[in-house]
């Protein structure tokens, strides 16, 4: 009986401790923040408008965009010494103009001063060939092809009028070789001081997809999926497309 009584007292002590811990807020806790990432797709300085607005490509062709979507994955935040302090787990975000899906939130970001954002465009080979669901990876996603080829990484569908012909633009870029890692400087460092109110804004420029380093003339290339033309587009989206990244 005595032993049981002691046992009980111990239990009570533990319960009390747990309750106190649950109720109290510890001022010493380091800040773990949410960072909202907002993507603004633009063309030559103007917000992208789908379908009814035409644009002039760097090679002088006229085009309109019906759909624009791409995956940003494996997001990392780097500090001034180049260390990836923040690595988002299961990090796959679909940016999709036609449904207005242009934001996502990085969770549990440790307080630090971040100077670079790193991410992949597309889906890494480890996750590109399965129906497993991580982040925005989803077997019923609009970016699915089949599980041999994997996901479309970048999809642009529209119309064009070039010098010699006119028709449709279908750039469905995928294939493991076209998964690209992009590292961009934040124009001013992201300094985490509070759990909320942190934001990274990424401004893209669609014309860069048709310009640098490979100019895309729609007279010659108006569709691409996995071949050499797709590789050109993929190189282009890994260079100038993510034009400006700011933090606040």
């Amino acid at each position, binding site marked *: *009986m005595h032993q*049981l*009584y002691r046992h*009980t007292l111990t*239990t*009570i002590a533990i*319960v*009390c401790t747990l*309750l106190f811990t*649950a*109720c109290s807020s510890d001022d010493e806790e380091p800040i773990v923040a949410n960072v909202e990432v907002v993507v603004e797709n633009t063309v030559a300085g103007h917000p992208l408008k789908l*379908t*009814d607005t035409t644009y002039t490509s760097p090679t002088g062709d006229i085009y309109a965009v*019906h*759909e624009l979507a791409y995956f940003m994955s494996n997001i990392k935040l780097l500090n001034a010494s180049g260390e990836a302090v923040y690595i988002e787990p299961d990090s796959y975000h679909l940016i999709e103009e*036609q449904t207005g899906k242009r934001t996502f939130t990085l969770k549990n970001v440790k307080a630090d001063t971040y100077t670079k954002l790193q991410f992949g465009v597309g889906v890494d080979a480890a996750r590109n060939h399965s*129906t497993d*669901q991580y982040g925005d990876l*989803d*077997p*019923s*996603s*609009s970016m*699915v*092809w*089949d*599980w*041999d*080829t994997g996901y479309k990484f970048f999809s642009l*569908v*529209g*119309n064009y009028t070039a010098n010699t012909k006119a*028709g*449709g*633009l*279908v750039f*469905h870029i995928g294939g493991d070789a076209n998964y690209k890692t992009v590292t961009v400087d934040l124009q001013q460092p992201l300094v985490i001081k509070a759990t909320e109110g942190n934001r990274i804004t990424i401004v893209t420029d669609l014309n860069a997809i048709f310009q640098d380093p490979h100019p895309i003339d729609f007279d010659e290339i*108006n*569709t691409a*999926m*996995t*071949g050499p*033309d797709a590789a050109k587009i993929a190189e282009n989206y890994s260079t100038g497309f993510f034009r400006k990244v700011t933090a606040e």
Partner: protein
Amino acid sequence: MSFVTRLLVTFIVAGGIVACSPDTDAPPAPQAEHKPTPYQLNIPATLSRNFIIPDDNPLTEEGVLLGRHLFYENRLSGNNTMSCATCHQQQKAFTDGKSVSFGIDRLPTKRSTMSLANMLWFTAFNWDGSAKSLEEQARGPIENPVEMHETMANAVSELQRTPIYPPLFYKAFGDSTITEENVLKALAQFQRTLISADSRYDRYLQSKEVFTPDEAEGMRLFMTHPEPSQGIRGGNCGDCHGGTLISLKGFHNNGLDYTFKDNGLGGVTGRETDNGKFKAPSLRNIALTAPYMHDGRFKSLEEVLDHYNEHVIYNSPNIDPLITEASNVQNGRSLKLTADEKQKIIRFLHTLTDSTFIQDPKFANPFTR
């Protein structure tokens, strides 16, 4: 544990809970007799875990059961001869086998009955996307003069006068006074449970089934946009009917006509650039849902494949780039599949038939046993 100990522990735990909980000055909740049971949706491995159920219409066992009764309820039509299930017949994957549907006055509508499956994952309903939720959608056919030709108000008062419905509405919504809103909510709840994901294709994706070489090649062709410069042949179907919903949920002009008798999406948005666009529906159970297209013009899957391969009207206004830019020969003007490739795609389409779904007693007429 002794009685004293138990009392002590109880006291401390209770004290802790009180200490943690916010002050509750609010009056005590009324005696809650109405407690519907949450409906456990089993999301199949091959479909997305992401879907939206409206906050104001959570799925409950009682709501779904009521919705199932209403789905099969003739009182929702003007002369009490038709229910939703008249056109949406389970054994045909909730279609009716007709080119276009007919209402109570034997008048034809302008469109073919759509199959009902996996609507949980869609956000635009009807061939023209005119309804943004299943709740909104349900009102359309009931009130349309060429469909069920009833007013919601009249349907509600008829249901109210029955012995069975007021208690069913009470159990589902806590109110035996029937409202239009609750009729539509219950119908939407039932329809959200219509999940089809037990086809041979689903089992293939989970390595529980083997495809014949023709089916496997048909699937590959179905999902592939042709790239003749790379030697990649494709049927180009997956550009609009891709993913495991076998629909990317888009609206497209697939080149059926040069002039439109029915503007489709354009009739809803008022935009000229949307004229001739219709929903690319899910092709799940497609072998059961003939005739095909929004107006049911094609009797067979062979005719459908022939259209996409040989008869697309390429100068149709707003024709989709995904169609115009797809050919199996370089600079080709049409798809150019072989007869053998078309047959293989049809073989694959047959793997999308879900015999569990069309026989599931949970979806059957509750009035006949």
